[in-house]
């Protein structure tokens, strides 16, 4: 299961909307071994494409150097699909190389732009991709890690 803070969830969705119709991509880093996605890092899609994404090579090196120096790992690797469902494509699976990461897929196919109307949600799903095998997992959105797992009285849905 992926547990993610509301603010981080919203930031991923906002990035996906902003870059629509191109795919958006990025990482949420967290302390090694914690499984807590804490530091939101939107990345440039060097492919600038509606059907492909790739971190720029120099950006990738800088990202990993930075994470290494902070003892962080990519807890979430996210990207958007802008015309298809939020499910890993064959290309996604063939490139997936972080067996411990949560691969978050967001689809903006219905709602590229925020309208504020009812039903204006992008699809947000999370997967593990290990040795070519995809398994979907639940996503739990928490208001803040500070409040741990306690129930919240604020209902957003």
């Amino acid at each position, binding site marked *: 299961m992926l547990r993610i803070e509301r603010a981080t969830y919203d930031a991923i969705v906002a990035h996906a909307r902003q870059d629509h119709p191109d795919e958006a991509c990025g990482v949420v880093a967290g302390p090694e071994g914690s499984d807590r996605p804490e530091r939101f890092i939107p990345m440039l899609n060097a492919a600038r494409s509606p059907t492909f994404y790739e971190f720029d090579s120099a950006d990738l*090196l800088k990202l990993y150097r930075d994470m290494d120096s902070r003892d962080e790992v990519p807890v979430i690797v996210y990207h958007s699909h802008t015309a298809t469902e939020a499910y890993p494509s064959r290309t996604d699976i*063939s490139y997936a190389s972080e067996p411990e990461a949560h691969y978050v897929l967001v689809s903006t196919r219905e709602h590229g732009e925020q309208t504020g109307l009812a039903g204006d949600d992008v699809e947000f799903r999370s997967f593990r991709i290990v040795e070519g095998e995809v398994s979907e997992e639940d996503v739990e959105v928490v208001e803040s890690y500070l409040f741990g797992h306690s129930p919240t009285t604020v209902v957003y849905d």
Partner: protein
Amino acid sequence: MAIQVRIPTILRTHTGGNKTVEGNGDTLAALVDDIDAQHPGIKGRLVTDEGKLHRFVNVYVNDEDVRFTGALDTAVKDGDSVTILPAVAGG
């Protein structure tokens, strides 16, 4: 002195979990051979049967992506730092 090589998570099964290993060689190709002799299987994850770097692996010597410096022919020397990172990409 030797050349320090950063190993990505997905290849650490070949290095007993180590994040960095050391090796020697005058070129990246020679270095990869040396690393593979110590940690069998690494080379096959980096280099294709045709002897080219895999498309989905990025290798850097110090700060330079070797795609722009001669790929496996890139010269390396003691004290260099080599970083291997899988591309983060998809469709």
